[in-house]
């Protein structure tokens, strides 16, 4: 069947949420909650349907159709040849991202209608306007056909995250969390911008369609004096800095845990469907570039692996339900980086997709719990909620199984694929695969532990909930439960499209990553047995983590954990203080910057601007005014006196004779021409003998010497009029 998907319909996909944002943002206050919800959810749901059509259009297009592209308008020209278009491109990778963004996005929108119901009309409309804008930005990001268009979306999600994290901006902590997210992201964005410009400088284009053919322009080395790097490495490292900002990797991950300050569905949106996946998507999108630089690839993988373990260790001891999930997101994003970093781009993107399902489900589940308990987020005050929140508990359990990698769930297939590729892929340095694999495996054990802990402490065991709160438990509305059920179902089953060796997902993305396949691959052939062995190892990691958590928190009611914390108080302290990284950044970045700002404020602003420029100017004006004010008497007769004085001076200046003349030598004779004036008479001495020529005074201002002149001559002119006399001399040669 031929599905009709015209390229222009691609433009509708981001346009719908944009329109929703515009209408809700401008008129939402007056429309009422019902209309705002319809618009907000409807626009994203429509975009989802269109995305589905696009995907089917791609799928039915046959082997030749690898992408749909549509140009909206010409943006600007950088050079006469390099024209920048606002163009959208939907290939197999974008199509997957589209489905995730709009699919999970519309579920989150739906959930929000119930979760945010207690907001007033204006807040509700503002919330949905931001949410739609967020979706729009993310869609621009995944659909952009060139780096600058992608960058627009990239910046857009940064802005929207700021707006949404600081949604309840009346609380200073929320507002500063939003600010932190924005500023940390800006640091990364600067790296991205630099990388983008390096690419343009070398390849002369930003276009994703043209770039792959020009990658050889990026191979030449740039000399840094004591070492040199290829342009590709330089650009990729800069892009990686951008990606660590957006995707919350070491060293720029610090904003994500603070992003909890926003409403919980926003956390779900940021952590699952949008924003944080941008970095992974960008690396996957520019795969042809990254494979040019094995060093950058290794760096991506190492950053990912380090983040995966680092964030997991922090998640072990957090007591805020959302904080645990936040660090688990950072950790899971690390796995995605490992995936794209070892060249298993499809595995990285696959984990992105499955993670979107189970992380959205976990966050929305957490939101349901928080909602039910009237805003309680501390898992020490939860427990035993299973009988009260039946569906929430079931979906949370399913997603926990998925994120921990329980065999058969989506997370199992996607994470195992990354682990296997991390071990099996070739890398620039022989030790990298081993290091990355071991870190990932440790991360898997930790993930299983802290997720099981989170689930058990929240839903199982004895209830530690305030009995008063338990009595007035909020039951989740259907609009909250339906998204949870859909997401949980996906978290359980989505892995089936990615079963190793029969992976539909890999097959689907094959046209996108085909060109890079020759650069990255397995170190050598491994037997199926080896692969299965590694799978067993993963399951073993899961079992160890989950079993330990079960024994500690259910069988022994948390005592082993407390004992451990008591025995190593400093280690425990360090972990719950999140390795004191925020404090470190505060010490080495924030405070020095503050000092610089204060010093420049005191020195430059206070002294140069305030004192010298502002007050100085005022003082000069005031002083001059005081002096000049004296002559402004307001008495007409004073003015008339000055007027007459001025008139007299003018008459004097005009009538007093002034001697001035020009002289030139023509045919050996001197010709002179004096300036005219009223009643002037002239007397010349043209040969410097102090005797007047032409017989004395004449009214004619012109004169010519009668004899030829040689050498230096001193000319002299006298002028007289009834008002006086004047004279002047001039030399001529």
């Amino acid at each position, binding site marked *: 069947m031929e599905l009709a998907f015209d390229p222009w319909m691609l433009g509708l996909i981001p346009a719908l949420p944009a329109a929703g944002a515009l209408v809700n943002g401008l008129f939402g206050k007056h429309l009422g909650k019902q209309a705002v919800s319809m618009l907000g959810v409807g626009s994203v749901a429509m975009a989802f349907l269109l995305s589905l059509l696009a995907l089917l259009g791609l799928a039915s297009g046959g082997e030749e159709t690898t992408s749909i592209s549509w140009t909206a308008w010409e943006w600007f020209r950088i050079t006469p040849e390099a024209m920048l278009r606002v163009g959208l491109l939907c290939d197999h990778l974008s199509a997957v991202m589209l489905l995730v963004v709009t699919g999970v996005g519309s579920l989150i929108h739906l959930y929000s209608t119930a979760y945010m119901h207690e907001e007033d009309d204006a807040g509700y409309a503002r919330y949905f306007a931001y949410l739609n804008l967020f979706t729009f930005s993310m869609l621009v990001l995944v659909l952009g056909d060139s780096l600058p268009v992608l960058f627009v979306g990239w910046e857009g999600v940064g802005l929207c995250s700021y707006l949404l994290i600081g949604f309840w901006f009346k609380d200073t902590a929320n507002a500063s969390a939003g600010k932190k997210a924005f500023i940390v992201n800006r640091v990364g964005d600067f790296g991205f911008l630099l990388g983008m410009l390096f690419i343009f400088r070398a390849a002369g284009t930003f276009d994703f369609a043209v770039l792959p053919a020009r990658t050889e322009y990026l191979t030449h080395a740039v000399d840094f004096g004591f070492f040199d790097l290829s342009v590709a490495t330089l650009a990729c490292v800069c892009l990686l800095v951008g990606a660590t900002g957006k995707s919350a990797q070491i060293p720029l991950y610090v904003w994500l845990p603070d992003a909890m300050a926003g409403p919980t569905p926003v956390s779900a949106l940021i952590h699952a469907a949008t924003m944080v996946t941008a970095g992974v998507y960008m690396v996957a999108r520019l795969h042809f570039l990254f494979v040019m630089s094995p060093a950058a690839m290794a760096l991506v993988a190492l950053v990912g692996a380090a983040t995966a373990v680092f964030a997991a260790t922090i998640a072990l001891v957090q007591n805020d339900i959302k904080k645990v999930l936040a660090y688990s997101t950072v950790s899971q994003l690390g796995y995605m980086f490992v995936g794209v970093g070892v060249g298993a781009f499809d595995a990285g993107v696959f984990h992105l997709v499955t993670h979107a399902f189970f992380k959205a489900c976990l966050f929305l589940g957490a939101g349901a719990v928080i909602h039910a308990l009237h805003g309680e987020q501390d898992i020490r005050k939860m427990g035993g909620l299973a009988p009260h929140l039946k569906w929430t508990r079931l979906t949370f359990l399913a997603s926990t199984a998925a994120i921990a990698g329980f065999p058969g769930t989506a997370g199992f297939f996607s994470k195992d694929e990354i682990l296997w590729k991390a071990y099996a892929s070739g890398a620039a340095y022989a030790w990298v695969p081993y290091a990355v694999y071991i870190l990932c495996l440790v991360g898997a054990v930790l993930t299983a532990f802290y997720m099981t802990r989170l689930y058990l402490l929240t839903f199982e065991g004895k209830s530690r909930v305030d009995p008063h709160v338990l009595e007035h438990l909020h039951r989740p509305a259907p609009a909250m439960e339906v998204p949870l059920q859909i997401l949980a179902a996906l978290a359980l089953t989505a892995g089936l499209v990615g079963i190793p060796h029969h992976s539909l997902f890999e097959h689907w993305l094959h046209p996108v990553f085909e060109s890079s396949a020759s650069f990255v691959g397995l170190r050598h052939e491994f037997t199926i047995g080896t692969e299965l062995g590694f799978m067993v190892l993963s399951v073993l990691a899961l079992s160890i983590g989950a079993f330990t958590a079960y024994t500690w928190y259910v069988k022994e009611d948390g005592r082993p954990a407390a004992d451990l914390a008591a025995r190593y108080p400093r280690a425990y302290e360090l972990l719950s203080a999140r390795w004191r990284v925020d404090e470190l950044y505060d010490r080495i970045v924030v405070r020095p910057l503050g000092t610089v700002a204060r010093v420049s404020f005191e020195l430059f602003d206070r002294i140069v601007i305030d004192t010298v420029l502002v007050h100085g100017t005022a003082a000069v004006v005031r002083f001059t005014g005081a002096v000049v004010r004296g002559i402004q008497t307001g*008495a007409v007769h004073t003015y008339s006196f000055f007027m007459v004085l001025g008139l007299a001076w003018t008459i004097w200046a005009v009538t007093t004779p002034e001697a001035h003349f020009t002289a030139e030598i023509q045919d050996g004779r001197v010709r002179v021409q004096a300036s005219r004036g009223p009643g002037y008479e002239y007397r010349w001495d043209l040969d410097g003998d102090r005797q007047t020529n032409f017989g004395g005074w004449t009214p004619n201002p012109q004169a010519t010497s009668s004899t030829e002149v040689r050498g230096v001559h001193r000319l002299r002119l006298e002028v007289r009029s009834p008002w006086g006399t004047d004279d002047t001399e001039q030399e001529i040669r």
Partner: protein
Amino acid sequence: MIGLGHYLALSGVLFTIGAIGFTTRRNVLVALMSIEIMLNAVNLAFVAANRFRPENHAGQTIAFFTIAIAAAEAAVGLAIVVSLFRVKKTVRSDEADAMRG
């Protein structure tokens, strides 16, 4: 024989009288009259010049302009004097100093 010089000298004398009156008298009406004398001194110089250099009638033409301007000036000036008198009950210029800086 009366020449151009005589006319110009008379004009100069008239102008000086007007200028001195303008600067020294505090009565605004008298100041206006002084201005009138200065204008007419200038007029005299123009028409005299026209009489002795009659190639064109620029001197007379300008004299007409001066008369027109003098009329306008008198109208505006007298209006100001009337307003001043209404406010200050005086026509002495040294009492009108509201614009002092």
